């Protein structure tokens, strides 16, 4: 019997620039040099709505508890040069290893052209569609970041997978953008349902491990010397 994939799983035709994108990515994976230590590691989070900011603040605590000194800096929705942001972060973050940048503004994310981006997506169809539209907006730019998804509030793991699959198949099929599944936070650990649920840290720990293991962070350079501008 001939095996045939559902159209939803079929990848769209390879775009002309795809091989160049892949080549550029691997060519840019150069070994770490001394200059790399002079950089600031950030994880931008695009929140569906402001009520999800508990995720980033709790994740920041979990990362610090696990030995990765982290800090939180809400991304300003002002036009700020990338190098200036890096210096502001360095001043704010001090010696922190990671800086989490939550924002609800897709425009702010576009303005900074990050390499990586985590989307916090509530587990409902409207939010999945809103996330898809934001990804479509990012995919229209010259530089599309690597995008990771965290589902917030699904009933269980099965529901989380269904929502992720819906979004991931859609972005792959229509936009040729692959997504990384970074995990989920089930509804029983959401603060509205359980203000002090100790299982919440278990789920956040899994997400933090995936973030670190896959090196899902962006590197911002130091401010360039004015003499070199």
């Amino acid at each position, binding site marked *: 019997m001939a095996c045939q994939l559902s159209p939803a799983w079929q990848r769209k035709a390879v775009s002309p620039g795809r091989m160049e994108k892949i080549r550029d990515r691997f060519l840019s994976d150069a070994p770490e040099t001394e200059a790399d230590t002079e950089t600031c590691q950030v994880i931008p989070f695009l929140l569906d709505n402001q009520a999800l900011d508990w995720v980033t603040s709790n994740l920041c605590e979990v990362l610090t508890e696990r030995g990765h000194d982290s800090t939180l800096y809400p991304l300003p929705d002002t036009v700020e040069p990338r190098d200036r942001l890096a210096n502001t972060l360095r001043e704010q973050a001090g010696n922190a290893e990671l800086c989490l940048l939550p924002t609800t503004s897709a425009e702010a994310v576009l303005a900074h052209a990050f390499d990586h981006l985590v989307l916090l997506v509530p587990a409902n169809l409207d939010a999945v569609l809103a996330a898809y539209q934001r990804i479509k*907006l990012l995919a229209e730019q010259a530089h599309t970041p690597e995008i990771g998804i965290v589902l917030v509030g699904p009933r269980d793991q099965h529901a989380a997978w269904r929502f992720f699959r819906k979004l991931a198949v859609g972005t792959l099929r229509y936009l040729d953008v692959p997504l990384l599944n970074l995990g989920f936070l089930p509804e029983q650990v959401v603060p509205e349902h359980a203000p002090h649920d100790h299982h919440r840290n278990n789920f956040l720990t899994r997400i933090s491990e995936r973030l670190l293991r896959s090196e899902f962070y962006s590197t911002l350079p130091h401010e360039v010397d004015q003499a070199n501008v």
Partner: protein
Amino acid sequence: MKLCTRTTDTIDADELRTLLIDAANELTGGESRLLEARLPWDGYPILLADAQYHPVLVSFDPINSQAALLNGLRATEQVATALPWLNQVYDALQKQLRPPRLMVVSYDPPPGAEALLAGCPDLKLFGYKVVRIRQEAGLLLEPVAAGGETGRDRPAEREAPVVTTAKEERPRTGPVALPSLSEEEKNYFRQL
């Protein structure tokens, strides 16, 4: 809480410039980029790029609408002549070589506004009012209709005035319209 609001008749040209730069998105009707805050020509107009990467000149004068218009027309000619050079300098124009649009802002419409608007589709005229709320100044921009009237004289449903305030130090990222979805995409996301 008591809110103290009052309108101000006069305004300094530099303050008006600042308020207009803050209102750039509303003036151009979408996300815009500031290319030059003060072009070194008569009246020192503002040069913007609109969401479609077309150049937009904003010529203004706090009181003298005729000067604002004439300065704006002269600057438009100069920009049109210098388009190849401008496109080399400003990446935001995307090398499209599109002619500039002109926005003229003054307290009252200039004389002959009706004929000008009828004959120049790339020209827009705005009247303004400055509103001060406590220590902050805001700008009420009223598009001038083809009849030469400002928005305050016309029925409310024709075009809403735009309001901005001078609170922000840096320009905010303008709202970007989310891309539309094809029928196929809509159908795909209709159910889980």
